[in-house]
């Protein structure tokens, strides 16, 4: 279970003279194994919501409770260090989470197909390459609940297919929260959905309802 209760979050604007409310008393609950899609237009606060769930940001009020381990946003390149090589990033993550480095490195080499680039700084990677590295590293730590940002949409067809197999087939029993402004990923993989609009999170009865509401 992961539960968000009355989450409020605002950001200062006009040099701190006023505030813009991004999340207005957001309530959300996800059980083990559930796949949730959250739809929202650009700038509506999807990433803010993800940051609060992942724990990197704190809400101004409200609480986050969880008895599941939660991943960092998948394919999110920002959690890596540009000046480090792919290999050093793998090392950092294995150390932080206490997983075996050599096993992880093998997995990443095999999945990300970066070849010799693994020993080059991440900042020299193409966006497709960094997405592959980020995703591969994410798969090396096991979580109960995966956070998926739309970043997954970069990369070619082959990469998408591999991600689908790793994430939705091999790890189909885990909980997932997919946040996107496009409906495809959510239509394909989710069994619950909500729409984020004007600071409110509206929980819908079905994924189709949510898509209709979002596109309407």
């Amino acid at each position: 279970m992961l539960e968000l209760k009355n989450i409020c979050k605002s950001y200062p604007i006009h040099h701190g003279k006023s505030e813009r409310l991004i999340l207005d008393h957001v309530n959300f609950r996800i059980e083990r194994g559930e796949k949730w899609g959250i739809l929202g237009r650009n700038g509506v606060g999807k990433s803010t919501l993800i940051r609060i769930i992942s724990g990197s940001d704190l809400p101004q009020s409200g609480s986050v409770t969880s008895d599941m381990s939660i991943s960092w946003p998948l394919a999110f390149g920002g959690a890596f260090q540009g000046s480090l090589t792919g290999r050093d990033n793998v090392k950092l993550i294995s150390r932080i989470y206490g997983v075996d480095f050599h096993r992880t490195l093998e997995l990443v080499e095999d999945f990300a197909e970066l070849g010799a680039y693994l020993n080059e700084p991440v900042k020299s990677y193409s966006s497709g390459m960094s997405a592959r590295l980020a995703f591969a590293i994410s798969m090396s730590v096991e979580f109960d609940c995966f956070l998926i940002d739309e970043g997954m949409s970069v990369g070619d067809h082959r990469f998408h297919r591999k991600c689908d197999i790793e994430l939705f087939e091999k790890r189909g029993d885990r909980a997932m929260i997919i946040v996107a402004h496009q409906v495809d990923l959510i239509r394909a993989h989710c069994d619950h959905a909500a729409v984020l609009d004007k600071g409110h999170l509206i929980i819908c009865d079905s994924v189709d309802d949510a898509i209709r509401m979002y596109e309407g």
Partner: protein
Amino acid sequence: MIANDRGISFLEQFRIQKRVIWALILREMITRYGREGLGIIWIIAEPAMFIIGVMVIFSQLHSGEAGQSVAEYLAVSYPTLLLWRNGTGRVTKAVEVNKALLHHRPVRPIDIIYSRIILEFSSSIAAFLSLYLIFVTLGICQLPADLFTMIIGGLMVIWFSFAFVLTMAALAELSDTVERVSHIILYLMLPFSGVFLAAHLVPQEYRDYLLLFPLVDCVEWFHAGYYGSRMETYYYPYYTVVANLAFTLFAYALTNIAIKRVQTI
């Protein structure tokens, strides 16, 4: 506010934190020094070059008092300055810059600060110790008059520097103004650092005011261990410990506020 995954014990928490801090230290070492050229050796080489440079310049400018050379004085004094001065430079805005790391649940904001402080302090201390041994061999420095007192004094300097650096880290996260003027604060601290103005050089009626700055007491304590009877030193051990303790508590309180703010805004 965020309930812990699976309510883990304090000991487990401590183990995780140790692992995370170590991971961050190693990461920082590679990002800062790289693998090319001198690489990791820079950890010692950089502060060592600083100390030697200062020793060379000042010993040309001043002639020492009877019985002690300027070079010797700086070799054992200047490194104390590196701790709080360079340390502060490394921690300002460290959390904000590395905020993306907080997406990883095991990483707590203070771990980022700890890792930088530990790396910076180890670097300065390692540089001091290696240079000191070399200087003793060359005859520029002597063996400590009272090793135990010198070690305790050194620990006091480290303790004060830790609280100071933590406070500056918190203030810099809280206010851009403080971050901008931090090098001015650092510069204006120099007269009260115990390095450029030793307590015995100050007229007696002002000495106790100077010793209100705990850093001066710490450095004097350190000097007392090194010089023994070769130099007049003044410090209040109880005051030093109590002041450092109070300063540390203050630093932690401020850090908690700062971290909460960085994560909230």
